[in-house]
């Protein structure tokens, strides 16, 4: 039992692979549903959330933190779903968010430009040159997006357990490879890894609750002990602690809350 996170280049047939993997393993297949849930829960139009995760942040947005808020909502919805296990997720940045959860198989699907151009020409009814520019623009946006939010290049193969270059594989061969890898013992859910996932979901939930008023907050959780890191001074930290304390009294699984001001958050904080 595992979680399979499939990161895919645009028009790389990754969606088809993800859906077949989910079908073969009998897993739930998640992608857009996460956006819908986040949209419902936080009362943000789905299109706004979609833009937040597809377009690279503009210079103004980097100062206004609007995107951070939307991404926090999406992460909260995503991690809540992933606590259920047996899920194939194909969407943006799951692999980066889930990098410390050991029962997540992180896969990337890429395809050569020739194939992608052919797909775009067919689907979007564009000429070859326009299709190529369109793909280049999409790739550039996604790389900028991931870099600005997570500080990593999504094209870096070291982020993944497995990377497959379609069309060097038949789709069914790629599906088989991924399914076999998902069944390896390293990707089986253990009580410890399940706890890691729950902690991550908890941290994302708290972040989503406070991010609108406190966009510079980072949250981590370890066995239900919530650690909140903020950049402002002690007075603000005390206020934040009161808010979060009140919030956590309504959230299951929180044992303790600590707020740290002016401390560098750990790498696994969201």
């Amino acid at each position, binding site marked *: 039992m595992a979680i399979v996170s499939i990161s895919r280049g645009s028009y790389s047939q990754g969606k088809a692979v993800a859906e077949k993997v989910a079908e073969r393993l009998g897993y739930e297949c998640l992608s857009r549903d996460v956006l819908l849930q986040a949209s419902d829960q936080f009362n943000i139009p789905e299109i706004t959330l979609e833009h937040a995760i597809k377009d690279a942040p503009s210079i103004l947005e980097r100062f206004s933190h609007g995107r951070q808020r939307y991404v926090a909502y999406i992460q909260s919805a995503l991690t809540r779903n992933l606590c259920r296990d047996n899920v194939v997720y194909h969407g943006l940045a799951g692999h980066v968010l889930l990098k410390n959860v050991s029962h997540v198989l992180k896969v990337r699907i890429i395809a050569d430009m020739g194939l992608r151009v052919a797909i775009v020409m067919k689907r979007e009814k564009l000429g070859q040159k326009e299709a190529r520019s369109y793909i280049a623009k999409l790739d550039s946006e996604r790389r900028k997006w991931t870099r600005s939010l997570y500080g990593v290049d999504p094209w870096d193969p070291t982020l993944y357990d497995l*990377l497959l270059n379609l069309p060097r594989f038949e789709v069914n*061969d790629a599906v088989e490879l991924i399914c076999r890898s998902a069944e390896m013992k*390293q990707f089986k859910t253990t009580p410890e890894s399940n706890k890691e996932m729950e902690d991550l979901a908890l941290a994302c939930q708290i972040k989503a609750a406070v991010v609108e008023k406190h966009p510079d907050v980072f949250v981590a959780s370890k066995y239900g002990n919530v650690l909140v890191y903020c950049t402002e001074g002690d007075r603000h930290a005390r206020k934040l602690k009161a808010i979060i304390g009140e919030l956590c009294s309504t959230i299951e699984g929180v044992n303790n809350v600590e707020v740290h001001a002016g401390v560098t958050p750990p790498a696994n904080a969201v």
Partner: protein
Amino acid sequence: MTAIIISSDDHDACEEIAAQVAEALGYRCVGRSLLKEVAARHKVPQEKLVRALDRSSVRITSKSRNLLLAYVQAATLEQIVEDDVVCAGLAAHLYIKDVSHVLMVRVLSDADARVSRLARQKKITPRKAKKIVERERAHRARWSVETFGVDETAASVYDMVISLGQIETDKVVEVIRDMAGYRKFQRMTYSRKCLQDLALASKVRAALLSRFPGARVKADGETAIVHVKCSKRQKLKIAETIKQTAGEIPGVSLVEVHAVK
């Protein structure tokens, strides 16, 4: 029938996996041991061949390095063209392109384990060890671009990239072994010809490079097509020399020489 090229950021892991895959499939394994034969054939120190493969060394000029790598390339392709072979440690992933039955795999080492091992070996802090590992990685990327025009750290070079971070070596071997049976990696007449052309071109280039360092060579069947920089005045004499040298190589029946400015 396939050929498997395994590349890795960890040379020891690469050789180990290549040997295990070869054993599992009953294939030949071609690795750094080939360099002894290359050294004897071309009368160059084996150590220089290793250095040319491993680093952009200040002790080798780029002209010498290109020549040494041309020798390695020719010898490696000679082995790979025979099929049912696993090759590692000879940079084959950088000069074999567009051959459909060649399976290219990159194996990424467990970064944390590598850093810990290095810190223990050199008795340094993990932070310093991490910096060394990152520097080596950047260095290899630079080397591969300088020598073959290909960034070996780019995923698009490979059919599959697999990480040893979570997946164990024996599972990696199993996956590669099974991939070798996939239809898309079976040899076809055309793909075999592509590989034979590459092999012949590399032999001709290795023979010409010492006198004509900028020579570019392609092959089509038994025809070698050579592009070389020279003036109009020199063209006739150079073409004659090239035809004579290339014509002596087994498998070459026709040599075309094109002068470029």
